[in-house]
């Protein structure tokens, strides 16, 4: 009997703590227990046997940190560890199928990007080496444990699945707030891990059994996968300088009985637990009936923090990260302006999106690498789940791989060739797949045909082992201007898929109004109709006030907005602004109070910028433009003088950096109003010249660099920001691409100065004539000269002055 068959039949018991047991036998602080597999195998075998005698069915190999980053001879350690566990089972007299050895894999010991500097694929590679080392010794399963980062968990699961056919069990570490250290809720982990098709999931370490019970309850509610729980012996307390745990064997056992009643399938212990704990635990739960978790028909996707559930209310998918029909967005893709894309994501989140659609397809760009970069950067700043929207299977896979959760996948349709590409990826990485009702012959005109395609998509998905709950059908909104019935057909299709097939639906709602004026009026009406018909998710523009009013209103009126909370929170943003109201709120800035009403608007603008009041600055700029003031005059007479004034104040140490930055923000707010009104006119703003800036390789601090960037931009320079931890080659290629004549490099740590030096050397070699300025906490004039930089920028203003000298 293999371990998966055993789980179907009976509750299995893991072992308990290792550290306490081995320390009692002389393990020193900081000494890795893994080495004892080789140096003191008898102690390790003895420990395993003690647990087997106490009633453990599952012995974890003593390989928690036996990874290639820590030990050159990790293969030898792993081999010995598995053999020791097998020997223990034999010596304990256990028969085949009675006790099992699992390969124990703990965290890599490095923090993954973007929080740390460990690249995702290197993490996968590290875990893969462990798995490959273990497979020849035939462990019964792989236990990925004590994982406190969801992304690292995913890297380990992929490594396990790609390099073995062994069952995979995963336990994560939740803290007192009920989340992983990097933020994931139990629901988010269930969504991701079930998407990855693991064989058991749950939690270990950090908490005692009592603190785990509410978390286990949350998991049991939604999971269809066997659950594994290995708590600590309570919470740690310090006694005479040693860590002791506050839950004794009996209390532990009675908590574990509650876990068994909740339906936990595999249980053991973690830090502070001993064979005695396992023995008592086993006794305590012996009379609790056993069963596997029921199959749940719950659809969820997740981000690195939370899960979004489908079916309760209509989910709002923001559609704005998409170049189709958007000139500015296309330009951002061509210019590699990731920040523009990220801001588009963040503002949709602010507007109330539940999920963000991500489409970065343009013929001119390398879509797979752009998709990977955008997904990776987006999930560093936004905690919304993403919908990967691409027709390029390489782009799809590159995004699915690094996605920190369970995404939506947009899309498959009725065509077999597309299904054959997308379904295998969805099966491997997990995801909620959008199925468009397009057949081999295009979009059918009748409801019946669309419903039929939906049915077939479900069937084909099932052939790939993908459940219906992981398909969401898009019956397609087509322009009503082209066919009077298209609204009705779509509505009826939504209703039938909902009522008859009991399936989920999503729609790109705004397509309905294509070709007609007043689109948002039509869109909001159609949105209400589709929501009434049972639409599960609307792909729409969350900046459309009309649609947002309709969306919020529907949820309130259909009883789906508890205590009208979302409505009350958000509706203020979409209030129709009357003239009287605008005047009434105008006084909110500090400046308005102090200022005489008849002040010259140009000097009011200067004042607002100097005081860092950005809304006020934007408002005055708007008024000036409305009154017909020449945009260039506004820039030259108000914005630049204000910036100069603040800049000088800063240089004379009369003002602090934050003053300077707040003024910059206000100036930018005014600038963007002015820019909007200058498009198409000749004689635009003075282009001050191009500058490439970066924080050098190995350094992840980029606040200083960001400050310099903002100030430079304010002075009219066009800045290409390469971000942090940038390799020398990337700086060189950016200089070549942009033709910039000035480069700014930042380093905070002494340890990363060599990287700066290397970057400068490469720049001098490959782009002669380009000037290089450096800055950062460790820099000074001498140091800068030593590594052959052209200039040391003491602060942001000094960089501006130097840029003016070089480029103007």
């Amino acid at each position, binding site marked *: 009997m293999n371990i998966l068959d055993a789980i179907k039949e009976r509750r299995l018991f893991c072992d308990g703590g290792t*550290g306490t047991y081995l*320390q009692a036998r002389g393990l*020193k*602080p*900081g000494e890795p227990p893994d080495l004892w597999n080789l140096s003191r195998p008898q102690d390790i075998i003895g420990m395993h046997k003690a647990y087997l005698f106490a009633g453990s069915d599952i012995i974890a190999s003593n390989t928690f940190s036996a990874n290639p980053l820590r030990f050159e001879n990790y293969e030898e350690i792993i081999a010995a560890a598995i053999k020791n566990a097998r020997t223990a089972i034999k010596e304990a007299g256990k028969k085949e199928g009675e006790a099992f050895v699992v390969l124990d894999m*703990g*965290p890599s*010991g*490095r*923090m993954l990007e*973007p*929080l*740390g*500097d*460990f690249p995702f694929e290197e993490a996968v590679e590290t875990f893969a080496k462990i798995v490959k080392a273990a497979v020849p010794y035939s462990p019964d399963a792989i236990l990925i444990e004590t994982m*406190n*980062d969801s992304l690292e968990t995913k890297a380990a699961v992929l490594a396990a699945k790609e390099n073995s056919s062994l069952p995979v069990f995963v336990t994560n570490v939740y803290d007192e*707030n009920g989340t992983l*250290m*990097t*933020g994931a809720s139990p629901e988010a982990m269930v969504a991701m891990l079930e998407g990855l098709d693991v064989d058991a999931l749950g939690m270990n370490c950090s908490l005692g059994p009592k603190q785990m019970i509410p978390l286990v309850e949350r998991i049991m509610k939604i999971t269809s996968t066997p659950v594994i729980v290995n708590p600590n012996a309570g*919470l*740690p*307390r*310090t006694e005479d*300088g*040693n*860590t002791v745990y506050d839950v004794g064997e009996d209390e532990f056992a009675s908590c574990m009985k509650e876990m068994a009643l909740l339906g936990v399938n595999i249980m053991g212990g973690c830090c502070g637990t001993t064979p005695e704990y396992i023995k008592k635990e086993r006794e305590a739960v012996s009379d609790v009936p056993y069963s596997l978790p029921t199959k749940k028909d719950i659809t969820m996707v997740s981000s690195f923090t939370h899960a979004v559930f489908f079916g309760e209310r209509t989910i709002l998918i923001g559609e704005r990260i998409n170049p189709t029909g958007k000139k500015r967005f296309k330009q951002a893709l061509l210019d590699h302006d990731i*920040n523009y894309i*990220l*801001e588009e994501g*963040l503002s949709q989140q602010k507007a109330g999106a539940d999920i963000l659609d991500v489409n970065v397809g343009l013929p001119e760009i390398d879509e797979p690498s752009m998709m990977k970069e955008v997904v990776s950067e987006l999930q*560093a*700043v*936004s905690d919304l789940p993403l919908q990967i929207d691409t027709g390029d299977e390489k782009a799809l896979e590159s995004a699915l791989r690094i996605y920190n959760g369970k995404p939506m996948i947009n899309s498959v349709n009725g065509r077999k060739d597309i299904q054959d590409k997308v379904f295998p990826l969805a099966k491997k990485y997990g995801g909620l797949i959008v199925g468009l009702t397009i057949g081999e012959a295009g979009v059918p005109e009748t409801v019946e045909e669309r419903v039929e395609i939906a049915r077939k998509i479900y069937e084909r998905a099932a052939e790939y082992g993908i459940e219906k709950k992981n398909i969401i059908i898009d019956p397609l909104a087509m322009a009503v201007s082209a066919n009077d019935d298209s609204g009705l057909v779509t509505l009826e299709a939504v209703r039938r898929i909902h009522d008859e097939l009991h399936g989920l639906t999503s729609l790109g709602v705004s397509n309905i109004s294509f070709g007609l004026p007043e689109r948002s009026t039509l869109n909001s009406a159609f949105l209400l109709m589709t929501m009434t018909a049972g639409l599960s998710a609307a792909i729409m523009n969350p900046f459309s006030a009309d649609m947002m009013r309709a969306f919020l209103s529907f949820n309130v009126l259909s009883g789906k907005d508890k205590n009208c909370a979302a409505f009350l929170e958000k509706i203020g943003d979409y209030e129709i602004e009357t003239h009287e109201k605008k005047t009434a709120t105008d006084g909110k800035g500090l400046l308005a109070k102090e200022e005489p009403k008849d002040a010259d608007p140009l000097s009011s603008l200067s004042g607002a910028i*100097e*005081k*860092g*009041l950005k809304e006020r600055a934007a408002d005055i700029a708007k008024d000036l433009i409305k009154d017909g003031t020449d945009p260039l005059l506004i820039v030259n007479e108000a914005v630049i003088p204000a910036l100069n004034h603040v800049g000088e104040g800063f240089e004379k140490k009369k*003002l*602090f*950096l*934050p*003053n300077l*930055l*707040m003024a*910059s*923000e206000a100036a930018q707010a005014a600038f963007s109003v002015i820019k909007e009104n200058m498009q198409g006119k000749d004689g635009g703003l003075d282009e001050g010249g191009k500058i490439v800036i970066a924080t050098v390789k*190995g*350094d*992840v*601090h*980029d*606040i200083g660099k*960001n*400050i310099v960037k903002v100030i430079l931009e304010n002075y009219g320079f066009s800045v290409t920001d390469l971000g942090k931890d940038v390799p020398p080659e990337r700086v060189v290629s950016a200089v070549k691409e942009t033709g910039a004549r000035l480069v700014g490099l930042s380093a905070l*740590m*002494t*340890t*990363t100065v060599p990287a700066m030096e290397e970057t400068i050397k490469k720049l001098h070699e490959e782009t002669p004539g380009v000037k290089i300025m450096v800055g950062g906490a460790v820099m000074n004039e001498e140091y800068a000269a030593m590594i052959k930089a052209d200039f040391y920028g003491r602060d942001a203003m000094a960089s501006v002055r130097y840029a003016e000298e070089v480029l103007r």
Partner: protein
Amino acid sequence: MIIMTASTLLIEKESVDISLKDVLIFAGYRTCDKDSPVSEEYKRRAQDALSKIKQVFTPKACFIRSDIEKRGEDFVEILGMRLESKPLSELLYPCKEVFLFAVTAGPIVDREISKMRFSPVDEILYDAAGSAAAEALCDEAERQLSSLAGKKLCQRFSPGYSGLSIDCQADFLRVLEAGKRAGIYLTKGNMMAPLKSVTAILGIPEKEGEERTLY
């Protein structure tokens, strides 16, 4: 010789006192000048940053107690680590034992700071609030360890201070089992991740009242 094991130090979020004043100081606003024309607006935004960081920070800490194994004029040896720094050796003069500890405000703080990258003022303020949180965590860890030792401790001293090379960070984190106990890892550039993490040594003076400060 007493060798003890690394232990987790429980820090309740509520017991960590992060002050607005510290946030402003870390943000470079040394004097908090009353006459500054933006101080109210700025303080409001600093307060917002502080509130957010207080909401999301996830304090973790661990420590180990050890003898000073060897010492010279400009070095000490602790748990097999040779720490070269004259000021450190002087600071620990009245001590036979030390605590090493590590604290972190957690990775969510890093994310919140990173989210602010489009608004440099907030980025500075969030970063400052994160630093203030780490500082407050050190204070709390120190308070707990001082009560554990039953006496006042010497001023805390971190890798990177007065001649002590940052290169010892890896050894510090290893003996503290800081990855497992507090989720603190080292990047290749010897920086700690999460960013708002601190490691330090606290000397335990042999006799009460003999604790030293650096300067």
